[in-house]
């Protein structure tokens, strides 16, 4: 289950946006340049606070600038943060750096600056190649800017350019979505993330939904678009490796995000960032903690020289196995059953034989034998679409 080398990942949350999108439930805010400067100082200050407690000796092999909109910060600020990380944490000379950027921030100059920082994956918040959809989503760029941004990024020579898209907007037809996918594919990014629009309660869309003015697509239509997305992209050469993630080749898969899905440790800095530390040897146990959600509170705690942790939990074998099952069923690689048994001490198949047979008959799962004869529990496309429900069906007879 562990990533190949199991090296930890570093996540840095930059909460600023030039405008807060009506669907977004991340920890974000709008703020002027002075506030952004102040934030950078605090982020730099959090690094040594966190480093003191981070006992995993292995070097971080990925760094992810997420948000928010990290591309709003000048490259120099990002460099300062990286510098602090290099100073206090085991950061090798050239980790794989990911940067989320808004299309309107992408120019040959900014791209060059990010390349100089060591950014290897540029993840673009394109969301749509339709002007109408972009307006509905409250984005500041238009379709033309989106296309230009992808082309500019491609030309700048990043290892991977990733494009984020949202589907399932009210009235979204198969035809309209297929056109957008075709546009995306024509631009040939290394990586695509296609997210079904989710309406979260504490967002502007959530408020509209509560008033009955907006709703997610009916389940059947969601399923149809989900199916279309996966089939279209697989046929075009971007097979899925996770529910919402597609890559032109394995090299383009997100080696940072994969850590979230297989219990590789990660350290998150900045407001709302989550961290996971696993037991060094033997026992299947881990600890997860998360920072203050709101930036002002996070800042004031960092300013006071405290670690800005809002909460934490320790994960026993059952919690870990539950997560591994839930997350594994979201990936097209599925669950390595021997690895699962070795790591969590449970023969998943033995404990759920009848269920697996039934789900296989239903066409949701297959038990496949990959190279070396290792059995894997692999969700089919229809299984992937109901992965959350599938996970709830399994019996995990483990101590809590």
């Amino acid at each position, binding site marked *: 289950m562990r990533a190949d080398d199991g090296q930890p990942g570093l996540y840095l949350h930059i909460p600023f946006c030039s405008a807060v999108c009506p669907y977004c439930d991340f920890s974000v805010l709008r703020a002027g340049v002075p506030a952004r400067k102040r934030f950078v100082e605090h982020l730099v200050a959090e690094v040594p606070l966190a480093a003191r407690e981070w006992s995993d000796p292995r070097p971080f092999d990925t760094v992810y600038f997420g948000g928010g909109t990290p591309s709003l910060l000048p490259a120099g600020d990002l460099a300062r943060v990286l510098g602090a990380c290099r100073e206090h944490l085991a950061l090798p000379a050239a980790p794989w750096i990911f940067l989320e950027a808004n299309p309107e921030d992408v120019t040959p100059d900014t791209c060059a600056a990010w390349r100089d920082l060591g950014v290897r994956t540029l993840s673009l918040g394109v969301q749509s190649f339709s002007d109408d959809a972009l307006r509905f989503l409250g984005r500041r760029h238009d379709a033309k800017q989106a296309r230009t941004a992808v082309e500019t990024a491609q030309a700048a020579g990043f290892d991977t350019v990733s494009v984020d898209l949202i589907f399932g907007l009210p009235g979204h037809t198969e035809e309209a979505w297929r056109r957008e996918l075709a546009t995306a594919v024509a631009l040939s990014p290394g990586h695509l993330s296609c997210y079904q629009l*989710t309406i979260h309660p504490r967002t502007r869309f959530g408020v509209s939904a509560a008033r009955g003015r907006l709703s997610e697509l009916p389940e059947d239509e969601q399923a149809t678009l989900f199916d279309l997305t996966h089939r279209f992209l697989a046929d075009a050469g971007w097979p899925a490796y996770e529910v919402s993630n597609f890559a032109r080749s394995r090299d383009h898969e997100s080696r940072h995000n994969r850590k*979230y899905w297989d219990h590789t440790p990660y350290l998150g800095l900045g407001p709302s*960032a989550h961290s996971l530390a696993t037991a060094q040897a033997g026992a299947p146990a881990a600890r997860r903690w998360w920072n203050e959600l709101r930036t002002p509170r996070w800042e004031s705690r960092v300013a006071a020289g405290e670690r800005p942790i809002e909460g934490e939990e320790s994960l026993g074998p059952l919690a870990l196995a539950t997560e591994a099952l839930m997350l594994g069923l979201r990936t097209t690689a599925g669950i390595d059953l021997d690895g699962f048994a070795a790591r969590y001490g449970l023969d998943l198949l033995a404990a759920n034989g009848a269920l697996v047979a039934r789900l296989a008959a239903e066409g949701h799962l297959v038990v496949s034998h990959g190279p070396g004869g290792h059995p894997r529990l692999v969700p089919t496309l229809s299984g992937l679409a109901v992965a959350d*429900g599938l*996970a709830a069906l399994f019996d995990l007879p483990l101590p809590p």
Partner: protein
Amino acid sequence: MDHIRNFCIIAHIDHGKSTLADRLIQRCGAVEAREFRDQILDSMDLERERGITIKANTVSLPYTAKDGRTYELNLIDTPGHVDFSHEVRRSLMSCEGALLVVDASQGVEAQTVANLYLAMEFGLEVVPVINKIDLPSADVDRVMEEIDRDLGLDPFASIQVSAKLGTGIDELLEAIVQHLPPPKGDPKAPLRALLFDAQYDAYRGAVLQVRLFDGALREGTRVRFMHSGQEHKVEEVGYQRLKHVPAPELVAGEVGYVLAGVKGLSGLAIGDTLTEAERPAAEPVPGYREAKPVVFSSIYPMATDDYEDLTKALEKLKLNDASLIYEKDSSAALGFGFRCGFLGLLHLDVVQERLEREYDLSLILSAPSVRYRIVMNDDSEVWIDNPTFYPDPAQIKEAYEPYIKATIMTPERYLGTVMELCRERRGVETTFSYLSAGRMDVVSQLPLAEVLFDFYDRLKSITQGYGSFDYELLDYRLGDMVKVDILVNGEKVDALSQLVHREFSRPRALRYCERLAKTIPRQQFKIAIQGAIGGQIIARTTINPFRKDVTAKCYGGDISRKRKLLEKQKEGKKKMKMVGAVEIPQEAFVSVLRTEDEDEG
């Protein structure tokens, strides 16, 4: 004996019977103001809340009248529902007079008439009481007209009161003394005491409420129950004020309590006659009928862990409710429970509510059933009240079901719909007659089974609450019953099997299927819900599986929340029952087994 008045208060629901009783008790000084709490006679919370009296209570009130004499007023409370008509009759039998309460704004209603007829059947002297005259909407003149026209009583003999404010209570007490006759009886004759009620007291055992018709009862008297044959030695007799007040003896005409070392109520038959073992009376008080359960249902705890608690609760309840019978039962879907017999649907309701409230249990009840008489091919006979034990139809020669004579009173304008309801419910020999202008009396012979299934609610709704309903068991008649099973993904849900008339099997099965389809959450599999008679499928619905439930985003900050959601979901699943690898939530059983019918209403 002429200082005694035995009377009851009869009224339509909500016309203020209990409040009036409270006021009489207060005025006679039987209770200190500080001890007073509203509706003293309705001792159960449930009674106070529903405004109906379920278990009759009795109180003796000393009253000094204007003529200077002190009278003993025995107020015998009566249960207010047809299920307990048995007890109502016993109570009325103990009285010489009745106060018929009519709401000053509502006027004479269906039950008022039914109550009057019942009182007249027992030869009671009736004093009409117009209550709630303090209400702004009170219309005393109209109500007096109705008393004259609809009840045939002298409106000028009526007493106007406001039980709430205490207005007119003195006049009423005088009327009780002047207009209601004293009891008759021979104190020297052999003892005849009617057992009209009994309560269970944790310390004293059964407290018997009796009305003496002849003879006398005192400590040491050896009494015999004329119907059950049991004999007991009397330990104490006395008057039932708000507390027990021991007395040296009770004599003919009096009402009081008896302690005789009777442990529980289960061996007692209300309506039995106590006589002296040494010098027995020739005949018991007439009109005795055994209270037999006619409605059966299985009770299961929602949480299987609560089975022990349910067992204890039923044992305790039984001490207080002789008419409740039960035995162990079990279901593959719902686990261990009890098969219970009830006097009627309200009795079932009351037992369920008491178990849930007083014992804090959450319950699932199977569909109520009547008891069928089955004649097998070899001419042997079996009685079946539980669908689980219904024999193989191939072995059945004939099946008989109980019929009732239903008496329905309704305003004339609803006659058509009431007749239609009777027809729908397989009623035969339905006749009607005029009671008084605009008021009809419909009599129909109905299968009891059809009355169990939301009949009363339907009657209430089609007559906008004016219809009243009473019934008595008639006989057993040949019927065409089938056992309808409900299958989930091909597997029988035993708790949902029921015996239904063939004519209604398809709609009933379909309704069950549809209700299940509404309440069983969609799952990752297609779920087929079928209704079947034996191997023949007669109804079918399908719950389509989820096609998409997966959330789009799952990164570092989402995982804990997502896992907790999953854990909660799994916790919820533990409370579901598994049938055919399908998880069925308890609510699905509750919704299917609900008798009232919101789909049609």
